[in-house]
């Protein structure tokens, strides 16, 4: 085929044509891990679409053949009234553009197929929920206001057009311009049968790191959302649970996930990140990449991988950059069983702040005359400005790292946590609760790196990677041959300089 490649262990082309996500899926196939069959519409097709304003000649027939292949592989019928097949279409470029591109789930759920899915599962609410997600996500991703066609093949083509078009969305163009990335690469579109995390009580979805990206500790870390589909985790629209909750609720899935993480680590010789969904107790992996740890976590990871004989000392030193070293001494809440974490969001400005909770800017200003204050808001607006100025730290329940609160917190250099969805605000009384506790006036500590909001005054450390960093820098001195008194960054830089001529061994 000219425009389409099957996803399998044999998928051989590079990221230029297939995009990074498809290469990850091919790796999962090679490692024998369960990932849905699927195919990739190449970046060539995307470039042709962006040039001509329509999908290229021949793609229509290739799509029909590729979908027929998925129907054979799954024993289901795309858009069919019995045993209907539904698919996802996801973007996957050769360059990472986090959150910029479209994903559309549940394609093929026509009215007939939705009725078929309801009959097959005996769960009309599940089938209707899935169809509504399709209608809203496809409507959101297509610019013209035409209604969603009740034809599975047409839905699929519309979704591929939407994913291709998202390459040229203003936000995506701005991202590339800022990061000096070329505009002519295009994205691939990955088509896979749906795995339904919203299927039943034994279904769910989540993201997992093989180790803790905050500390580097060798213990799986992530979030899981029971009974939901994947976009809910990423969007933060629903309440996620710490990954370890899976161990109690779905022990078989948990064991299989741990085994998968360990095999992927063995391949990368590095920590890894996966996105997964399990349907009726069966685990499927939907995306994989290296963990990309930073700061203290990168130092601990590199050192422990040497201890585990996964990599050598030279490689460990290469993996720790000067940039990582800069972040090693950012204060953090020490990880401890005794720390009561009330809520978890996204760290938006690094550092630790300790203070009493104020839930309005006026209270923050008043309280800040006597004691440090943490301003806790559903989200912030210009109205909160004087409260933001008065506060030592900022927490919001909604919004991501580019929200108003995050931008202002960084402008003021104040530790901030955004999107801490477990915070519950009572709009009548203006009070906030988390983990069953009223937070007004409570003393809390927030960690703007990990996104933790903890009760009281837990131990804070500024040399989290202490012992690991010490060992790594001893190796650095051994390689540079210079054992004189110097700063950490000078010791690392000397090792990097000594390693450079040796190439990638």
């Amino acid at each position, binding site marked *: 085929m000219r425009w389409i490649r099957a996803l399998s262990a044999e998928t051989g082309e590079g990221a230029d044509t297939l995009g990074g996500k498809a290469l990850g899926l091919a790796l999962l196939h090679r490692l024998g891990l369960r990932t849905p069959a699927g195919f990739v519409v190449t970046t060539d097709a995307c470039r042709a679409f962006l040039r001509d304003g329509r999908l290229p000649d021949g793609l229509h027939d290739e799509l029909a053949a590729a979908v027929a292949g998925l129907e054979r592989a799954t024993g289901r019928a795309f858009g069919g009234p019995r045993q209907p097949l539904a698919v996802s279409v996801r973007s996957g470029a050769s360059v990472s553009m986090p959150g910029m591109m479209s994903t559309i789930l549940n394609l093929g759920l026509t009215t007939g197929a939705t009725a078929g899915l309801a009959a097959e599962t005996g769960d009309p609410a599940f089938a209707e929920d899935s169809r509504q997600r399709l209608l809203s996500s496809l409507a959101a991703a297509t610019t013209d206001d035409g209604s969603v066609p009740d034809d599975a093949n047409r839905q699929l083509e519309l979704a591929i057009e939407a994913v291709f078009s998202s390459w040229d969305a*203003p*936000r995506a163009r701005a991202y590339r311009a*800022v990061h000096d990335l070329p505009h002519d690469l295009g994205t691939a579109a990955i088509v896979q049968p749906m795995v339904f995390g919203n299927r039943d009580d034994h279904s769910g979805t989540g993201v997992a790191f093989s180790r803790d990206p905050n500390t580097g500790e060798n213990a799986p870390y992530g979030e899981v959302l029971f009974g939901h589909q994947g976009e809910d985790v990423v969007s933060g629209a629903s309440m996620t649970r710490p990954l370890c909750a899976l161990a109690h609720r779905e022990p078989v899935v948990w064991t299989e996930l741990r085994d998968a993480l360990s095999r992927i680590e063995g391949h990368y010789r590095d920590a890894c990140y996966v996105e997964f969904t399990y349907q009726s107790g069966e685990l499927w992996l939907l995306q994989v990449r290296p963990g990309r740890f*930073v700061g203290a976590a990168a130092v601990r990871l590199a050192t422990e991988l040497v201890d585990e004989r996964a990599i050598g000392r030279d490689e460990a030193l290469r993996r720790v950059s000067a940039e990582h070293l800069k972040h090693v001494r950012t204060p953090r809440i020490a990880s401890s069983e005794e720390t009561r974490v009330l809520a978890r969001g996204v760290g938006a400005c690094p550092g630790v702040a300790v203070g009493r909770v104020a839930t309005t*800017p006026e209270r923050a200003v008043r309280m800040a005359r006597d004691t440090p204050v943490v301003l806790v808001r559903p*989200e912030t*607006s*210009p*109205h909160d400005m*004087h409260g933001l100025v008065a506060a030592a730290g900022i927490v919001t329940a909604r919004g991501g790292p580019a929200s108003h609160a995050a931008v202002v917190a960084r402008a003021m250099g104040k530790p901030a946590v955004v999107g801490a969805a477990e915070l519950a605000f009572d709009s009548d009384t203006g009070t906030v609760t988390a983990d069953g506790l009223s937070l007004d006036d409570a003393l809390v500590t927030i960690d703007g790196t990990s996104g933790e909001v903890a009760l009281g005054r837990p131990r804070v450390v500024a040399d989290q990677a202490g012992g690991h960093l010490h060992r790594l820098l001893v190796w650095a001195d051994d390689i540079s041959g210079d054992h004189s008194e110097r700063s950490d960054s000078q010791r690392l830089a000397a090792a990097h300089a000594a390693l450079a001529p040796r190439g990638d061994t």
Partner: protein
Amino acid sequence: MNNPPEEEANMYTPETRTPDAALLALHALRCVGAASTARLHGVTGLDESDLASELIDLGAAGLVTRFPGEPPCWALTDAGRVADAERIAHELDSAGARGAVEAAFGRFLVLNPELLDLCRAWQLRDVDGGVSANDHRDPAYDARVLDRFADLDRRAASVCTELSAALPRFGRYRLRLADALDRAAAGELEYVTDDLASYHTVWAELHEDLLATLGKQR
């Protein structure tokens, strides 16, 4: 309150004040939160002395309160918030501008995520797989980000034009956004996200103004 007005009947004295100056001052506080008269001057373009007398009148009417400090700040009371909502809706509907402002708000919301992305890019850089504060030591990077701000600003300008055609008071945002970008381009980097007159701050105030004007929640 230090200087109560001598007579409440003096609240709107047309020969000495802009007729809608009271509403401009009231609504500015609705959009920017607590603010000094100097800051309100920047927001509304009204003279500080005019603002001071409007605020004193509004204070006597129970719509704003004054917080001591250096400088002292003014903020809306609950009654002031209610009064602003009524008066600003009345202004919108008397001008027959609701449809035009709704349409412009729709276009603003399309631009809003891009603005926030650019603010993030201005403050943070993706380095070695992680995220680092932008230390502004790479002029080429900063120039690329500012270039995108300028591009976004051209599209924002047409939204601002529609808004000020519908309601002249929106004209201030065009001036303030352009001023912030000019200063940033001239090397005053705090006018991108950090200053109280930065592009991000003015943009967020415009967002709040549109929500307040249309009576919408976030």
